[in-house]
């Protein structure tokens, strides 16, 4: 295992090293300052404003900002839905695919516009290249940019000296796309192709294999989509098996780079935050809280997966490692990633709201599989999705300030701004809405025969885990899955290639994703508006500090407390049972 720990340590070291330079770069982009790309991108940016007919220097208050965001997202949704409905007449469709049923399209459109990328379909068996490129990959870009825009608006609200404006949505959208997401995606895509990720528009290739059989190889423009899929913490695979497919993720090196792409923006945003509020320590405090929760999860998954599963032990398999073999639970894992690379990915993709997978979550060991549940139970505040993670974490920061203030008997204050009734009401709504949606939707699915049809593992703890995870994942805009759920009904494509025929799961899931994405965004923007108008008072002797280890401890405690109080009973019925028992069912 030493080699595995070393790989994990190297990853963490590289990630931490990237936080500062990337964080500074993003702060400059968000503050409309010059960066090294300005000479190239500047003219394109100005052209974009002209085409969009916006005046970038025109500030918006929180309601105007929210309106632009909602209108843009609504039209994005309609555009994507239309693309998914019209597959039969599209170019770049060498396999001649027709559209999937409307309820599946509803789920998919909602999924990609909300940065969730939950997939009730198998890409290579369902979608045209055009739908993948012009439909899904476009939303990979813009839904990520929307998330980042919201956190930038919130930061502006926090630092505003007085006034109502929190920036211009269109300017934020354009700058995030042109200065961050697109350039990095271009470089990452070219790198991935150079390592073996495919990028073409060909027919699927029929091959006569070495031993005399035939094998059809799916093709497609994969690298261009893979890059932004990771960078934007989207996670929707080109192929059904996502980043475990060798054409998406061919080696230990690509695995490492893709993991970095997933975490680099969410982690670096904490530094950006510190810089924009004028105190680097504030950013590092938030980073520290996230980092502690993240590393704990990685360690648990790795040790659990190395141990193997009860089913394997009872079958007489020895899961120990020896010379030439990783040992551990290799069910649903790839040899080139091994236990360490798969475990690290499992933690990374569930602390962020990425949801891409390189191993089968449903085949994780009981305890290893409990970690994704816990990470999602924290409402994606441990790094989280691009932008979404930090703005959700800032809600917890305000909550921690409030609770801390009550404990020491002071008026709660954050960065010189008083946190009052209106803010705390909005924070509570923002913090509680997602868990509430999860519990209601998974409760409905578990309690009715409508949800039962989706179960793959049957009516047992594993089946309950499938259901709970499906709605946890969709509500938190993650998109990873215990993929047996609703996965076995598509005619002519066994396994989990599609969800044709279960309208209940499609529709409830789609509604959950939309509600749990946009309602919190509105609360966050409202908080930004409320804070923007507040005067800053200088810190006094009685001010509770928010940049020291005590506060980090408090923040971690609040995150764990809210998550545990909300989800512990539900977790007991699924993942906890499976972590504790060696019985089979």
């Amino acid at each position: 295992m030493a080699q595995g720990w070393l790989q994990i340590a190297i990853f963490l070291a590289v990630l931490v090293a990237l936080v500062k330079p990337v964080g500074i770069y993003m702060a400059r982009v968000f503050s409309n300052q010059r960066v090294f790309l300005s000479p190239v991108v500047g003219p394109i940016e100005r052209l974009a404003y002209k085409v969009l007919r916006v005046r970038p220097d025109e500030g918006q208050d929180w309601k105007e900002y929210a309106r632009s965001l909602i209108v843009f997202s609504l039209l994005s949704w309609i555009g994507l839905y239309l693309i998914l409905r019209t597959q039969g007449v599209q170019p770049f469709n060498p396999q001649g695919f027709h559209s999937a049923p409307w309820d599946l399209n509803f789920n998919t459109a909602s999924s990609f516009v909300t940065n969730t990328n939950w997939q009730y379909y198998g890409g290579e068996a369902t979608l045209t290249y055009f739908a993948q490129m012009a439909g899904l990959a476009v939303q990979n870009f813009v839904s990520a940019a929307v998330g980042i825009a919201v956190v930038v608006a919130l930061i502006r609200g926090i630092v505003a000296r007085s006034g109502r404006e929190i920036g211009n949505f269109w300017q934020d959208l354009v700058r995030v796309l042109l200065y961050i997401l697109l350039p990095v995606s271009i470089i990452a895509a070219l790198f991935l192709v150079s390592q073996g990720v495919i990028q073409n528009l060909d027919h699927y290739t029929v091959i006569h294999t070495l031993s005399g059989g035939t094998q059809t190889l799916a093709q497609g423009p994969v690298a261009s989509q893979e890059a932004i899929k990771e960078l934007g913490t989207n996670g929707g695979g080109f192929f059904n098996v996502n980043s475990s497919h060798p054409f998406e993720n061919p080696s230990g090196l690509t695995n490492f780079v893709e993991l970095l792409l997933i975490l680099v923006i969410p982690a670096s945003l904490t530094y950006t935050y510190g810089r924009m509020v004028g105190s680097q320590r504030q950013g590092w405090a938030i980073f520290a809280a996230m980092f502690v929760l993240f590393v704990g999860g990685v360690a648990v998954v790795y040790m659990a997966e190395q141990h193997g599963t009860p089913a394997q032990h009872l079958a007489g398999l020895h899961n120990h490692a020896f010379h030439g073999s990783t040992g551990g639970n290799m069910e649903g894992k790839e040899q080139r990633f091994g236990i360490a690379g798969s475990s690290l990915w499992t933690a990374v993709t569930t602390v962020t709201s990425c949801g891409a997978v390189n191993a089968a979550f449903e085949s994780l060991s009981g305890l290893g599989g409990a970690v994704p549940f816990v990470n999602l139970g924290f409402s994606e505040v441990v790094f989280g999705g691009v932008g979404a993670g930090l703005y959700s974490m800032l809600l917890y920061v305000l909550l921690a300030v409030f609770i801390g203030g009550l404990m020491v008997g002071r008026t709660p204050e954050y960065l010189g701004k008083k946190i009052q009734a209106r803010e705390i009401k909005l924070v509570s709504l923002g913090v509680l809405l997602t868990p509430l949606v999860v519990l209601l939707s998974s409760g409905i699915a578990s309690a009715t025969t409508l949800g039962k049809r989706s179960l793959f593992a049957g009516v047992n703890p594993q089946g309950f885990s499938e259901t709970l995870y499906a709605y946890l994942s969709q509500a938190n805009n993650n998109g990873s899955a215990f993929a047996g759920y609703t996965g076995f009904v598509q005619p002519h494509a066994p396994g989990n290639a599609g969800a044709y025929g279960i309208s209940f799961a499609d529709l409830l899931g789609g509604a959950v994703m939309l509600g749990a994405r946009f309602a919190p965004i509105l609360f966050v923007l409202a908080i930004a508006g409320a804070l923007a108008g507040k005067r800053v008072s200088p810190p006094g002797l009685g001010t509770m500090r928010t940049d020291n280890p005590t506060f980090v401890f408090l923040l971690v405690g609040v995150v764990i407390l809210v998550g545990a109080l909300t989800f512990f009973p539900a977790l007991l019925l699924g993942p906890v049972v499976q972590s504790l028992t060696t019985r089979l069912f």
Partner: protein
Amino acid sequence: MRRDLLTAAIAVVVMTVVLGVVYPLAITGISQVVVPGKANGSKVSIDGRVVGSSLIGQDFEGKPAYFQSRPSATEYSGDVTYFSNLGPNSVEAREAVRKNLAAYMAREKPYDRGLSKDQVPVDAVTESASGVDPHISQANAWIQAHRIAAVRGLPLAKVDDLISAHTDGRFLGLLGEPGVNVLQLNIAVEKEAPLR
């Protein structure tokens, strides 16, 4: 409101064109010029005939003259992929591993007399994630080498050399796990000692 609608409509159209058509096609164009082999799936051929992709595993089940790939939920389908989704406490998972373990022992033990169940590497009896895992573990290959040597009439040392030559190591000795590329190894074996 009307201004927002207009701007949003233009934005959706422009972004679809730029990010959804120009960007992927530009990447495709560059890739096809610079690294066409990799962009088209790293295909491998024998005497000009394409026999597979070095990144995509193939099924050699029931062909004892070849190294065997890992078990697969999809029988190595390259156009419909999915996981087995068998859980940690699943009876089906126990049965599948039990069956795979028995089959592995039945296949290898006659050639590797000292082989016992606790020496069977995990990758040999569990299904991969992609269903087309191109690799097996080194331990798995070393066990199978006995059978290949006997069936093909090659010295064991020669087969072990071929295994080392087709092992993809860790990047810089650090990242990922070593794996033996089954298709390329089988091609090399075929070249060394062709089946009649």
